């Protein structure tokens, strides 16, 4: 037996580096893809020199090529440029949807779980209603009641997800509320507000964050579905769902469907992968 090796001194940066090394390659790719899409939506001009709204009529229905990566549409517009410029609207509406779901749903769940008693019972039935109406139908009636616009579609999508966030937040709050350290904090004279902000919320936020990431991807799909039905901004807007909806009218140019669909699926898949990774590293 040799003498035990001295314990290696681990600096925090080394720790962080080893944590980075443990990130699976698929997650790295997912992060890169999402980063790309986010960049598209912030500075679309960097990625394409074509104009998304003005086409060259002579160049209509060109298949994917070096000059037009995703081909061109029925007006000769570059499809890649339209996808890139459309991502801003798709991404920001998904963000709005998630923000609404997290804030409203989170607040309902927090109050229900933290106050308890009758408040909890009443809110639980309300949440049941949100969950009982099929998400997509709920989004459809909300958007039809607000008016057909992409922002309204985003709000509708957020409303349709309120139920699930309320439920998760409530169960997290209840779980933390029973923990010994929360009891200890009470015994030490911690106020309810102190316990809520210092103990309950930070502990619940992890699950809610994971769900929010997942919901971000899901919202992209729901908003695209609403846009597909024509409940978002009309053309020349180029939301991904709208692009697919326009593309379906030209069966001889299938890339008009495939290209935006693949971008959308890849984005949502990456977001799901990131969410799963976050859940695992919990």
């Amino acid at each position, binding site marked *: 037996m040799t003498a035990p090796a001295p314990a290696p001194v681990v600096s925090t940066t080394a720790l962080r580096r080893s944590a980075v090394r443990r990130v699976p390659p698929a997650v790295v790719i997912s992060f890169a893809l999402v980063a790309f899409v986010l960049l598209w939506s912030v500075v679309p001009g960097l990625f394409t020199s074509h104009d998304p709204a003005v086409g060259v009529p002579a160049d209509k229905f060109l298949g994917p090529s070096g000059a037009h990566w995703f081909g061109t549409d029925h007006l000769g517009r570059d499809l890649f440029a339209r996808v890139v410029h459309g991502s801003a609207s798709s991404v920001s509406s998904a963000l709005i949807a998630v923000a609404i779901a997290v804030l409203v749903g989170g607040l309902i769940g927090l109050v229900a779980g933290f106050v308890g008693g009758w408040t909890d019972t009443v809110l639980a*039935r309300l949440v*049941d*209603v949100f969950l009982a109406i099929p998400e997509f139908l709920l989004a459809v*009636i909300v958007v*039809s009641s607000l008016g057909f616009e992409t922002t309204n579609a985003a709000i509708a999508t957020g409303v349709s997800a309120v139920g699930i966030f309320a*439920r998760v937040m409530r169960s997290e709050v209840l779980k933390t509320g029973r923990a010994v350290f929360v009891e200890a904090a009470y015994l030490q004279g911690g106020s309810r507000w102190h316990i809520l902000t210092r103990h309950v919320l930070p502990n619940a936020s992890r699950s809610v964050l994971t769900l929010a990431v997942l919901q971000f991807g899901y919202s992209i799909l729901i908003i695209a*579905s609403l846009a597909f*039905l024509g409940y978002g901004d009309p053309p020349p807007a180029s939301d991904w769902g709208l692009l697919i909806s326009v593309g379906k009218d030209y069966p001889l140019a299938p890339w008009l469907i495939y290209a935006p669909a693949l971008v959308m*699926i890849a984005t949502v898949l990456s977001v799901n992968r990131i969410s799963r990774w976050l859940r695992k590293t919990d």
Partner: protein
Amino acid sequence: MNRDYAKYALRRVLQAVVVILLAYMFTFVVISVLPGDPVTNTLRNPQNGFTEEEITRIVAYYGLDRPVYVQLWSSLSRFVVGDLGVSLRSGLPVTRQVGEVLGSTVVLALSALGVALVLAFGTAFGAQYLPRRVGRLLRAFPSLFLSMPNFVIGLVLINVFAFQLGLFQVIDSEGGLATFFAAVALGIPVSARVTEVLIANLDHEAGEEYASVARSRGLGRTRLFLRHLLKPSSLPVVTVIALTVGELLGGAVITEQIFGRTGIGSLVERSVTTQDLPVLQAIVTLAAIVFVVVNLVADLVYPLLDPRVRLGGTTSAARPEPRDLAEVVAP
């Protein structure tokens, strides 16, 4: 146990009734906060050809000249006795209009559920028993299915199988093959959560001691799967399947539109465009009723199927929290 069960069942039934009534009121409120006055707009629209008398009759029927809470109350009291009102477009009773197209959607939804279950059980079995590489690939399926919206799948299926291979005609939308492909488009995203839960359960059961014992006694893989693992793994799936009802009904809106079917989904789409609010409200309420009833039945049947479940005092101790479950147990 029996008394506990009766108490549990009674409480769940009462809850379900309350939720259905609340869902009706909620829908009413959402629809009636509409900016503008679409009801009057629709009625006064000369294209619809309502006479002044009919308009007065409908306005009186719905109490449109009275405050919203009075309307809500009278609407609710009609709903309780099964009267869902009259379509603003056709002037026909909503129940009749919905009843006419219900069958097509039921066929589509059940076929889609069938597709989803075959896909889920096939994928889960493969993930467990096929060579490791294939299994790992199959484990990515739920995530992939969750990322593919049904309209994309539908359009791709139509493009490949109808336009290029000519297997079915989109015009003959209720035909066998057309229905099958519509069911595939609707079923694939729905299968994601079922598959996820099923894979996780199978992994768990395969690691249990009884499974090792059975294996050590020389039981073949397929027999082990069929005789021992399948039942305990698929029981919890009953509740997940019940939750997919909402996705099936919601997804039908788009699937029916793409495949040119006439059903509840396309009726929703049409009612949104024409602002036919009574029809819209009826369908949303109907969807909520179906969802609540199916989940109620699942909740009531589940403790009978799985004796390990103990009925606790809290709201839904008998079953795992719906989507959280899929979140938590995902691989």
